[in-house]
């Protein structure tokens, strides 16, 4: 090493050590300390650039290792950055990484250059690298891929629910042409807006690798489903047929706080990034209500004459269902979607299927509600809820990470 450079190195070490000591003694605090650290590393950067311009690449590497890395060597030969260097301004660190990485590449030490390039790309995720040296440009273009590491955002959309009974219960022993509890199909939401559920979520996503990330959410989930009963009574007497038909619709609204945990695999080659996702969810019941709509259709028919409809009654009744529904609902999720990078944001759309695994009916309370049981002759089946969710999302990356292409 050039003695002049050695002196500068010693000076810098003393400056940095002084800053560190001052901080530990509480002499410098807050912005003052940070400014001194930045000043010290800016001076280090200047010196590294001087060495680089002079072609003294070993000194560049030496300065970087001496001032920015701890002496402790990890099990795989890696060295951790010093706390002071970590506290330095990102732009200064990026410049230091840039100079050191170029030096390492020129010295044919790609292993040492790799972490510096990754961090450089992560720090300057949104900058064009057209003005960079060829080696870095090539690395940016061919060797590395930069993507968000932490993202936060929001997600909202619509859902359609299907209720899947697996043990049927009825208070009414059905006779004649009556039917009990026919669950309406999931396609009902296309016909009737009441069946369209909604969801809204705050979302956090962490990239485990270039393609795989973990996403978790705090979601408000409103699910809608219904079943219908049909009862008929007939009296035939002296050629006259009297009849009474009753149609009941039990329309249920369940609101949950939903906690999904998803693993996503995304194709990262393009600006439009399709992904598939799978995971599990736990939902905590917030509210459960039901509207029972009951319509009577009395009629009388004499001989071959057409039936004469009489005037029946119709009534709507709202009921709280919380005592009948378990608080916890859990299950599996599978789905897919696509995201698009628009400026700093990631816009997305996804379609997911939530497959409930547990029985949502609180069995010990099956017959507990007197009004529903004795008044409306309704007892709940054991059932699971499944739903399709169409969601749109917007995420803002908090930071980035560069991954090496395979």
């Amino acid at each position, binding site marked *: 090493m050039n003695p002049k450079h050695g002196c500068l190195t010693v000076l810098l070490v003393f400056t940095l050590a002084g800053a560190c000591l001052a901080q530990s003694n509480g002499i410098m605090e807050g912005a003052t300390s940070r400014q001194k650290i930045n000043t010290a590393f800016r001076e280090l950067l200047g010196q590294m650039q001087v060495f680089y311009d002079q072609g003294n690449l070993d000194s560049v590497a030496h300065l970087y290792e001496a001032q920015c890395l701890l002496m402790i060597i990890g099990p795989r030969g890696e060295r951790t950055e010093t706390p002071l260097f970590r506290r330095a301004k990102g732009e200064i660190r990026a410049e230091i990484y840039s100079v050191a990485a170029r030096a390492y590449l020129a010295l044919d030490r790609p292993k040492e250059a790799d972490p510096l390039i990754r961090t450089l790309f992560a720090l300057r995720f949104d900058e064009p690298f057209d003005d960079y040296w060829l080696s870095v440009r090539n690395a940016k273009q061919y060797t590395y891929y930069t993507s968000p590491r932490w993202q936060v955002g929001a997600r909202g959309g619509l859902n359609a629910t299907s209720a899947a009974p697996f043990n049927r*219960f009825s*208070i*009414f*022993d*059905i*006779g*004649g*042409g*009556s039917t009990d509890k026919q669950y309406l199909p999931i396609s009902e939401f296309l016909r009737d807006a009441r069946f369209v559920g909604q969801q809204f979520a705050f979302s*956090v996503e*962490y990239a485990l690798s270039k393609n795989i990330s*973990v996403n*978790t*959410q*705090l979601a408000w989930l409103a699910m809608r489903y219904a079943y219908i009963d049909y*009862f*008929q*009574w*007939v*009296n035939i*007497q002296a050629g006259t047929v*009297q009849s*009474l038909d*009753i149609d009941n619709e039990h329309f249920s609204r369940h609101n949950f706080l939903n*906690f999904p*945990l998803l693993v996503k695999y995304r194709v990262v080659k393009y600006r439009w990034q399709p992904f598939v996702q799978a995971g599990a*969810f*736990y939902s*905590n*019941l917030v509210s459960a209500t039901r509207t029972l709509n009951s319509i*009577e259709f009395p009629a009388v028919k004499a001989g071959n004459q057409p039936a004469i409809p009489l005037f029946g009654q119709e009534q709507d009744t709202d009921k709280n269902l919380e005592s009948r529904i*378990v*608080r*916890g609902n*859990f299950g599996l999720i599978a789905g897919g979607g696509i995201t698009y990078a628009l400026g700093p944001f990631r816009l997305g759309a996804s379609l997911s299927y939530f497959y409930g695994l*547990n*029985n949502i*009916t*609180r*069995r*010990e309370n*099956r*017959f507990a509600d*007197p*009004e529903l*049981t*004795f*008044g*409306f*002759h309704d*007892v709940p089946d054991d059932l699971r809820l499944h739903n399709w969710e169409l969601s749109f999302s917007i995420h803002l990356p908090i930071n980035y990470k560069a991954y090496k292409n395979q």
Partner: protein
Amino acid sequence: MVLSALGLALATCGLQNREVPPEDRFTKIYNNPSFDNITAIDFKQTNDGGYVILGSISREGSNDLRIPYLLKVGPTGETEWDSNLIPEFANYTSPVAKLKVEGTDYTFFCARQGQLVLVRVRETNRRPEVIRTLVSANARPYYAETLPEGGFLILANQPNCQSAGPGTQLIKTDAALNPSFDQCYPGISLSSPLFNQTSDEFAYAGSFTLNGRQVFYFNAWYRNDLSLLFIDATSGAVIKEYTLADPVSQAKTLFSGLEPLGGNRFASAFANGATVFLNAQASLLNADPAQDTRLGALGAPFHELRPEKRVHIRRIQAAGREVVAMAASARNNQIALFLFQPGTNNLRGRAYFGSTNPYVPNGLIQTADGGLAIIGTTTVASRFARIVLIKLSATDLANLANQCQALGLCN
């Protein structure tokens, strides 16, 4: 991650879902697609854990002619078969409690062409067959108590009692169903205006033994009031009548339920005017029932009960202790169930069944699993009477019997 951890934490307290076996607790209403009215009369549990229910059908437009209706249900209350489409049942009318079950043979009293007949229905062919004809002079049965020693104590209306006009006939059969007591009481009528008004439900009979003396009792219209009569089982003489009409207010009074608890102890329900009094520690004053003045002691008033309805009383076991269960009709059309501690008349627990539609109890039994079953009649579609079976688990019953502990009112 934090949110997911929070979710998992909530899951531990949110996923508890205790299984209650379907046969332990259920409510079942037995519908029929006709306009007919089907009313419960009595029921018993069968050896297979299910239930056999005796009721009656009043066909629409048939002048209230009540045809016997037999319904067999499984342990979870699901219908196994009923007599609705068995044409032979239409040959009989006026079925009465109680239903007797011996294995898969079900017997009950009803009328056929003016005769009082004991009908047996076997599970194998499900057809009614007459096994005894007891009275052949246009008698109408009102009640047939099953006696502990076997046989029945039958209460029937006799239009020509001892050639002295209408009266009440009391018949006791031995275990072989041969009459061992047959007495007609002219002037004591089951066909009173009050009975007509209340669907004959206060016509009940039974027996008890005190100091080696067997006494029959029954409710009938006697001396201008609905009276409880004690009959000497040997001589057939009326030895005591509780004619309780208030001479001042002329308020209707009656024993709307009575259950011997052994010795001189009884549980009683007593309607005094508009109020029903329940008493699980009623007793006779001394060894001679004829001299008693105490059975009419009122007990605790329950103003929510309907005085014009029968109270069904059973001694059962709940929470490891003997309790007296009473099922009554509440003014809000619910079935009210009360559990009393015999001897102290402490109310241990109460529950109400029913909402919107009227629910009336017709009987209750303790089930083989230690639970309780109540048979009743309700109305569906606001029009048609149907049978309802309510089953409580042993745990439900124990919780009910310990309600007073939770309130600090008993031990």
